[in-house]
């Protein structure tokens, strides 16, 4: 009886070994899963006394996704949604520019984000560090195309191979939009345009 059990184990041994290794590899590489950012739009911006008094059209026609990451961690929808929420938080009057039409005549400036960089580093082992980093370039220009303000802003979150990638992605996006809000509100360049008129 004992001998029969040992024989069965010996037969399955290599298979079990290979399976366990494949599981570990699958865990590290994401295993073909798709991790989506949180569906809630980020809203925990610090309170500001007053919005910037500028009529802004949000132009979402520049790329907000990178093909390499779109099937693994699609961020386009979250970036679009949060860009609109951020613009409405910062500026007094925000409309969304239609993708193919000319910009609204009433807009004094056009705000346009572009995803420049996205990465999730693979941890060397389960408890080892993994980083999610995002960089977005914000461009504010006059309706005639002249640049007013350009700024690349980065967001980052750190975890391990055991961290929930969805939570890490959400944290990186929060960091990105908090820093973006700070950059827009604190730059004297946009305030100068608001004071002088576009």
């Amino acid at each position, binding site marked *: 009886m004992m001998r029969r059990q040992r024989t069965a184990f010996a037969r399955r041994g290599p298979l079990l070994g290979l399976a366990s290794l494949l599981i570990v590899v699958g865990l590290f590489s994401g295993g073909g899963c798709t991790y989506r950012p949180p569906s809630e739009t980020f809203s925990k911006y610090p309170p500001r006394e007053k919005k910037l008094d500028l009529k802004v059209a949000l132009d979402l026609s520049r790329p907000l996704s990178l093909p390499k990451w779109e099937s693994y961690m699609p961020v386009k929808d979250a970036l679009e949604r949060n860009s609109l929420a951020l613009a409405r938080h910062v500026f007094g009057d925000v409309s969304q520019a239609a993708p193919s039409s000319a910009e609204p005549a009433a807009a004094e400036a056009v705000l346009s984000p572009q995803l420049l960089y996205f*990465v999730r580093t693979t941890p060397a082992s389960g408890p080892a560090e993994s980083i999610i980093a995002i960089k977005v370039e914000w461009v504010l220009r006059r309706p005639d195309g002249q640049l007013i303000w350009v700024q690349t802003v980065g967001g980052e979150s750190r975890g391990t191979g055991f961290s929930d990638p969805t939570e890490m992605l959400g944290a990186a996006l929060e960091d990105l939009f908090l820093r973006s809000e700070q950059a827009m509100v604190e730059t004297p360049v946009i305030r100068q345009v608001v004071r002088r008129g576009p």
Partner: protein
Amino acid sequence: MRLRHRGLRVSALSLPIAVSLAMGCASMKVPTFEVKEVDAYAIRTEQDGLILAVQPTFEPSEIDRTFRTNLLDKGVLPILLVAENHNPSRAFILQPDAIEIASADTRARASEPRPTVSSSTQGEVMMGAGVLISLPLLIAGIKMVSDSEVIQHNLADKAFYSTTLANGQRARGFLYFRVPKDASPGSRYEVVVDARDAMTGEVVRLNVPFEYRR
């Protein structure tokens, strides 16, 4: 019988390896890099209150400390660009697209925000094959892919990105210059930056010369 013993041995070996994979290796750390004030750099120029400094990095130990890979061996010269605006009334827009490296004879595009000096695709291929070929290779594969990604992320993270500098503001980042094959020690180059006035749109051109020393 011999086969059974081998099966047991493989099984007994693979489980600790799997555990060590889960517990053992640490990811490579993204190196920190300290940037000084623009006046601390020897090679600099100023126009309309906008000060630019460049520092090409030729020292292999410094490159390794900053990037964890020898970029020069791959034909890429990292050049630190530091910009500071001391103009009280003007703001300047700096964009990688408006930065070039010029030499007396040739002009090469300087800015490559995401150079692919270390290919993670190769690492991934190795990892897939490693599962079937040998266990030590698998461990090396995961570590190599992880390290390669950290190195690439570090390069991208430290690159120079678009920015707008109001009075008193500073920006810094590396330009990754693919060195021309005919470059020799003593060759003269210059970083050419077209900074755009945020209010008027006027372009201010700054040239920062440096010498190739390798």
